[in-house]
């Protein structure tokens, strides 16, 4: 099982949304991280055949992205999706099942099983327009699994879910990644940190890093410090170092920052995490590079 993205680019008029991205993905969960406008959604849409790449090619086990068989192996949750106004949760699932080529008996059985999985069985016949954001998102996740996809692409799947639901879905996604390719795009760093075996970091259309958590945090390992100081001292430090986090604690300020050389007095070295790396790359901290 292999998804190949070969030097894929996407241009919108004079803006490069995705710039020659190449990937080879196998079974497992891949977390795609990046700020707004980094090109994540464009890349994901191209992987799902919704957008045509300006150049490059995408294939799954030798099947081109435009093939019907490719789409038959795909489960996709877009960042924003709607529904026809007359649809109940069950109607929506049946409709998606018909588009995925499932027969009626299979569609009925799968719908029952998946609505149970996402805890929507008791509201199966209710109109989707009465659902909360979280319920709608759960329904969206359920429809991706109707055809038991080998390639599962989820764009912001945990957006709108409460912390308990998020953790439940995190575990579900991790389980699904055992025998298929799961490509997960999100802003929620902790989701990626917990479940993604490989992290893909995108910035300005380019793939900055790809690798395990240990691999990609290598860049700032041993360079992240934390210290509690007076407000005016903290202001001084923000001019000198890339700041990862700035938090008031009573009269003082707890500062987390990246320091390449000797740290200021009182600063303690801390373990670098994915959030540190994310903030380092995607906040004003990069200006100090």
């Amino acid at each position: 099982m292999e998804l190949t993205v070969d030097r894929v680019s996407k241009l919108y008029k004079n803006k490069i949304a995705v710039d020659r991205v190449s990937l080879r993905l196998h079974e497992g969960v891949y977390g795609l991280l990046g700020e707004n406008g980094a090109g994540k959604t464009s890349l994901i849409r191209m992987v799902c055949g919704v957008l045509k790449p300006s150049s490059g090619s995408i294939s799954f086990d030798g099947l081109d992205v435009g093939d019907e068989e490719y789409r038959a192996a795909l489960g996709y949750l877009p960042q924003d999706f709607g529904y026809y106004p007359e649809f109940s949760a069950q109607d929506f699932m049946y409709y998606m099942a018909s588009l995925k080529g499932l027969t009626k008996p299979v569609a009925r059985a799968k719908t029952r099983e998946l609505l149970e999985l996402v805890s929507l069985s008791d509201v199966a016949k209710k109109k989707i327009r009465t659902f909360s954001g979280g319920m709608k998102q759960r329904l969206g996740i359920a429809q991706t699994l109707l055809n038991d996809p080998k390639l599962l692409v989820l764009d912001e799947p945990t957006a709108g879910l409460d912390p308990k639901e998020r953790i439940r879905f995190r575990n579900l996604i991790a389980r699904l990644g055992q025998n298929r390719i799961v490509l997960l795009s999100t802003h929620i760093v902790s989701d990626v940190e917990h479940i993604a075996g490989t992290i893909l970091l995108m910035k300005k259309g380019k793939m900055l890093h790809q690798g395990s958590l240990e691999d990609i945090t290598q860049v700032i390992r041993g360079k992240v410090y934390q210290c509690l100081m007076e407000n005016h001292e903290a202001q001084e430090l923000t001019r000198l170092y890339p700041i990862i986090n700035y938090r008031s604690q009573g009269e003082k300020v707890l500062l987390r920052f990246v320091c390449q050389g000797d740290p200021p007095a009182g600063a303690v070295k801390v373990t670098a995490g994915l959030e540190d790396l994310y903030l380092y790359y995607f906040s004003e901290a990069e200006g100090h590079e």
Partner: protein
Amino acid sequence: MNSNMKRLLKECFEAPEPEKKQEFIASLPSPDVSIMDFLLSQAAYIPKWIWSLSALIFVVALVGAGYLKKDMLWCVSACMPLLALAPVTESGRSQRWDMAELEMSSRFSLKSVLLARLGILGLADLLLFFLLLPLAWMNGGSSILETGVYMLCPYMLTVLLGLWASRIVHGRECAYLCGAIALGVALGNALLYQTIQGFYARHNFPYWVLAFALLSVGAVKQCIETIKQKEEPVWNLR
């Protein structure tokens, strides 16, 4: 095996937990849906108002021509743009309700869905046209061929303008615009009949044929452009 025996067996032996149940289910060949099954499944998702409107137009024509013995040509012809509204609005429905992305990534993609629904609606409209044709013809002075052309001209004009509008304008505005076009053509047709003497006169028929030919070519062209556009709708940079 009788039910008593089954119950006793259940009581005596505890069935083991199934092993590799999912792998076994996945290994079973899943039955494939035929094109006909797909078409029929899509017919169920065409909004009910479209079928209701078609039925209403037929009933009005039937009552007017059959029971009241009136010349219904102008009325039926004025209703034709409303029939054309159905395929026109259907072409932009996915985008209006944000379903396009999900439909495009499915096995039967948006293009297939649209072709299926437009095909079904086209067939339904054709069937209704043949049902309405004798009703529009029976109390008037035109031949059956002339009646057919008079009926199809406003239909084709609405399809042409509506499909063009649905490629330019998207979302809810598109539905309103297509509705306005259909209503405009319907009212225009009725008004022209009332104000122009000899609107359906035989000596004007060649102009009607010419108009029908041009409108048909235009409508087919717009249909092709609409299907092509569904391969990749214009996305916003979000």
